[in-house]
């Protein structure tokens, strides 16, 4: 494995801290006991900016910290969070946000996050739950579906807005013209 750069090390640390802080803040939705998980929007943005390993570890460390400081770690969901970050990072790997953003990149980011969350909450989390906690399949898939859809919506709306706003703040190469 290629060694992590210093910047990735720091990005993982700060990203996980953000993931943790946002995970502790709950914004209510009309569905009882379901909250908007803003942390996944941040995770997706960081995965797109810093790559798959950063996405994976931000999810893993951040989610473990959230769980360990509330009711003990629920490993299957922690692994699903890490998995989502990895997939988003992999799909968005070669798109350089620092070079500006266009519709194609936005679509790619959203396809990446939708696929990632669908797989993570529709497949990885329920399968691990069956393996580890042996809970009824119907409950797990219903739960995973709700979590997955709400995460896709949150990441799609908030994550995309963040990414676009971030790209606008960056001064593009060659944007300065020599005055005649």
């Amino acid at each position: 494995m290629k060694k992590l750069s210093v910047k990735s090390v720091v990005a993982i640390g700060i990203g996980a801290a953000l993931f943790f802080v946002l995970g502790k803040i709950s914004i209510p939705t009309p569905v009882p006991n379901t909250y908007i998980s803003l942390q996944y929007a941040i995770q997706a943005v960081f995965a797109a900016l810093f790559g798959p390993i950063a996405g994976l570890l931000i999810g893993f460390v951040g989610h473990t910290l959230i769980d360990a400081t509330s009711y003990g770690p629920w490993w299957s969901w922690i692994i699903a969070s890490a998995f989502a970050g990895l997939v988003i990072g992999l799909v968005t790997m070669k798109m350089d946000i620092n070079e500006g953003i266009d519709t194609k990149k936005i679509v790619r980011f959203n396809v990446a996050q939708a696929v990632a969350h669908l797989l993570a909450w529709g497949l990885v989390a329920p399968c691990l739950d069956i393996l580890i906690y042996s809970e009824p399949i119907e409950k797990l898939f219903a739960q995973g579906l709700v979590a997955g859809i709400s995460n896709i919506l949150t990441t799609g709306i908030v994550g995309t807005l963040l990414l676009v706003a971030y790209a606008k703040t960056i001064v593009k190469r060659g944007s300065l013209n020599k005055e005649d």
Partner: protein
Amino acid sequence: MAKAAILSYIKRDSLVHELTGTTKLIFFLAWSIASMVTYDTRVLICMLLMSAVIFKVSRIRVRDIRFVLGLAAVFLVMNNLFVYLFSPEYGVGLYGSRTVVLTIAGPYTITLQQLFYHLNMTMKVICVVPVALLFIACTDPSEFAASLASIGVSYRIGYSVSLALRYIPDVQREYHNISQAQQARGIDLSGKDKLFTRMKNSVAILLPLVLSSLNRIETISNAMELRGFGKNKKRTWYRLRKMKRNDWIAVAFVLAVLVIDLVVTFWDGSRYYNPFM
């Protein structure tokens, strides 16, 4: 946002505190694995009793972690309720017999097997809670990176974790400041606004937070690069402690628990202890 109650390091003088971070990390991981693998009632009862004893030894008071226990209780009740609502006959399939205690309505009957399944599932979660809480409450955060490195995790990742722990309070404060400033300008995140508006409003808070975090990443990584971080294969840790006698005893104990757990659980070829056969 009211200051969220978050579990953190509680400094006390106890046997558990004295153990090195490495020991506690190994203990916590082995204990989690042991509880995840088994569904055997006898093993779970033993683990539950042992975790209660460990909690007593740590001299952390129930009062210190009351809010966390409350959260765990709510979580467990909800989880049990959902499992029952979705498949009230799950235990029957699992244990291969059916003893009806009470019929509520339609498919919802209460069977002994279902109750027994719920009991096991609940114990499985509960027996990790004290150990997980103690791991957080009794481990000095600055020692944590050192213990990760000492069980073989790359020190870069260990350093990321300790950066995360170090910057959580800063990020929290920053979030709080930004959200107060934006609320003063009329941006609302509470239930009074429409869902989509709320999401859009959250961007107004998140964007400054992300930008300042990216600046922070730049500053910190420059500082680390200047000090030659990552140049060598290994690094030393200021807070690394040597394993003492008690550490080895604790590690041996938890490994023994794990082995016994595996043996007892899989002895008869099934993960479940079945008293109904």
